[in-house]
């Protein structure tokens, strides 16, 4: 495999050759709806900016120069394609299906987030916006945004909840090294959700010169669509790599779900392969029954927050609930609207894994494979490990290892009672 441009073409032609019905992949509609979900629930000030972005994106996604630049940077700057790696010792330990890891942790800056940031920084460049802003939870999207801003010569400001600043300190310093301004957000629950609201406020105020790089498949249309499209390079590669290595499709594809971008990115190219199970793993925190979790698809109700209609953690008055997960990147009360739709039409399944299970998987991967996963990714991994044990040895599970865990070392050390100072 030499480049993702070729992979893209290869998959597209396979899809056409197989005469596969593309109905699932034509979403969203004109106005950004996935069935009843999605849409543009924003203030009037932003409607024109969103229309401009939508128009620019629809034009550029078919523009040769834009695509060439995107794929060039994915290959030479991000280091794509990322390997599809057979976790042999982990597989042996579980005694069932082959566990294959899609190694997004090996990307430049350490997570899948960079794929989307390259795409959106290019959009900012083509749209002539000299300043970018971003929200971040774990700091991975903030780092990726600050990185592309440095690379493209854009001014960058990152909003981050003050609680997350405390638990992801290596990434905070890293953003500053990259020349970004990190603004602590002290309102509400002081986590990802509040950082996103604060970024929207900045955008409303500076809409003329500012591009807002949303880090996941949430927010108002066209963000859920364009973030998915930029991230779908993960699934396009994984699908082609699996075919090449095994001559067959995987039996299941598993990914953690915070806002849902790494999951949408790996699911999307498999949507028409109806025999492939797609499984999204939400954080159950201290346990779904405790109410202290961040699993809207498992336990939420339909609501509207931050630009779209989706499943939401909320009380009976429609107030948004505080969420909890050990993983800052999954600690969000909503979820991308396309996941809400895929759940309803039963094309994807959504399950939840608690802190303990995720921590166990985190340690196992270190010991058995020499890979330090992000705590977010450890949620997907934990579910895949248990699932593998119930499947036969000739079956294949692909896990999206969405990021590496360097940023989580302070959290883990604290849990283990070790001082790093």
């Amino acid at each position: 495999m030499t480049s993702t441009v070729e992979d893209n073409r290869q998959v597209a032609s396979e899809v056409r050759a197989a005469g596969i019905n593309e109905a699932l992949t034509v979403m969203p509609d004109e106005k950004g709806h996935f069935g009843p979900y999605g849409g543009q629930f924003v203030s009037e000030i932003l409607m024109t900016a969103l229309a401009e972005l939508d128009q620019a994106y629809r034009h550029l996604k078919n523009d040769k120069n834009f695509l060439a630049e995107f794929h060039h940077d994915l290959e030479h700057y991000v280091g794509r394609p990322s390997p599809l790696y057979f976790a042999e010792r982990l597989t042996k330990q579980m005694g069932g299906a082959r566990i294959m890891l899609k190694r997004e942790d090996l990307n430049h800056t350490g997570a899948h987030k960079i794929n989307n940031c390259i795409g959106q920084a290019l959009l900012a460049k083509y749209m002539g916006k000299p300043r970018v802003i971003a929200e971040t939870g774990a700091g991975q999207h903030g780092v990726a945004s600050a990185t592309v801003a440095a690379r493209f010569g854009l001014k960058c400001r990152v909003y981050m909840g003050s609680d997350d600043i405390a638990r992801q300190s290596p990434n905070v310093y890293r953003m500053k090294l990259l020349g970004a301004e990190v603004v602590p957000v002290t309102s509400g629950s002081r986590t990802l959700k509040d950082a996103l609201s604060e970024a929207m406020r900045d955008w409303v105020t500076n809409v003329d010169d500012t591009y807002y790089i949303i880090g996941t498949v949430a927010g108002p249309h066209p963000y859920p669509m364009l973030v998915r499209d930029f991230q779908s390079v993960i699934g396009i590669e994984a699908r082609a790599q699996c075919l090449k290595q095994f001559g067959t499709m995987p039996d299941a594809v598993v990914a953690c779900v915070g806002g849902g971008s790494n999951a949408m990115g790996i699911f999307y190219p498999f949507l028409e392969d109806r025999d492939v199970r797609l499984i999204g793993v939400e954080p159950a925190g201290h346990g779904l029954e405790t109410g202290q979790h961040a699993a809207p698809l498992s336990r939420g109700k339909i609501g509207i927050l931050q630009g779209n209609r989706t499943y939401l953690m909320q009380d009976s008055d429609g107030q948004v609930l505080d969420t909890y997960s050990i993983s800052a990147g999954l600690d969000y009360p909503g979820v991308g609207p396309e996941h809400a739709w895929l759940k309803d039409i039963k094309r994807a399944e959504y399950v939840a894994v608690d802190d303990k299970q995720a921590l166990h998987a985190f340690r196992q991967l270190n010991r058995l494979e020499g890979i330090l996963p992000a705590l977010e990714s450890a949620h997907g991994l934990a579910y895949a490990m248990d699932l593998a044990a119930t499947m036969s040895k000739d079956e294949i599970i692909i896990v999206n290892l969405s990021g590496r865990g360097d940023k989580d070392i302070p959290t883990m050390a604290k849990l283990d009672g070790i001082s790093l100072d």
Partner: protein
Amino acid sequence: MSRIADCFQRLADNHQKALVVYVVAGDPSPAVTVPLMHDMVASGASIIELGVPFTDPEAEGPVIQLAHERAMRHRVSLRDAIAMVASFREQDTVTPVVLMGYINPIEAMGYEAFAALAASAGVDGTILVNVPPEEGQVLDKALISQDLDPIYLLAPTTPEARARMVFERTRGFTYYVSVKGTTGAGNLDIDEVTRRVAGFKAYATTPIVVGFGIKDGESAAQVARVSDGAVVGTALVSLMAANEQDPVRLRAAVTELVADMRTAMDAVS
């Protein structure tokens, strides 16, 4: 005729402009809200926008965000805000009251249940900050069937074709957000406001009131001269924070600010 249409008719007959006041239900405490509403009417307010507290008021600046947080500490819900309107209506059956806020509490209650409850309490309309006309179609039907006005917003970024579409959907009045930013932001650019409002007037279907950046009698008067009314929010809400512990001083301060604005607006109309 609706209370809102009556109100603008009355104002026109008296050669006055609308003074629209915004407070958050339950800020700084639930017991104060209804007395404050009456005080504001007595000192010259024409229309009350009652803010419905929400956990994530994403279009608000810091001052109004804190107002939502104060009200949320008292767990004031949409249902409570509607009950406050019902209580206000026991003494005042004339002054229009519109609920202003975010869609999720209404989504959670259900559109039809909300419209029925709000109408029976004497609410006159809604201003939903995060519902542009494109997303309001279903809700509008429920509101209109109960004679509630869906009030939509215009912004400095709204192009003419879009403004025409907004005027096909808005009822009662239309709210022009005068600055790019959150509530409480920036300085009023009165020349720009004058230019935009004059443009809208060519095809407006309702009166136009102007909000954001109006802090005192002078700015209210400037805006009133070129539109159908001025909205004051952050300046009032600041008084809630400053006098949180002292309801007597709070009511005096609110009365004084509203009266000042009324006087300044009447001097130029």
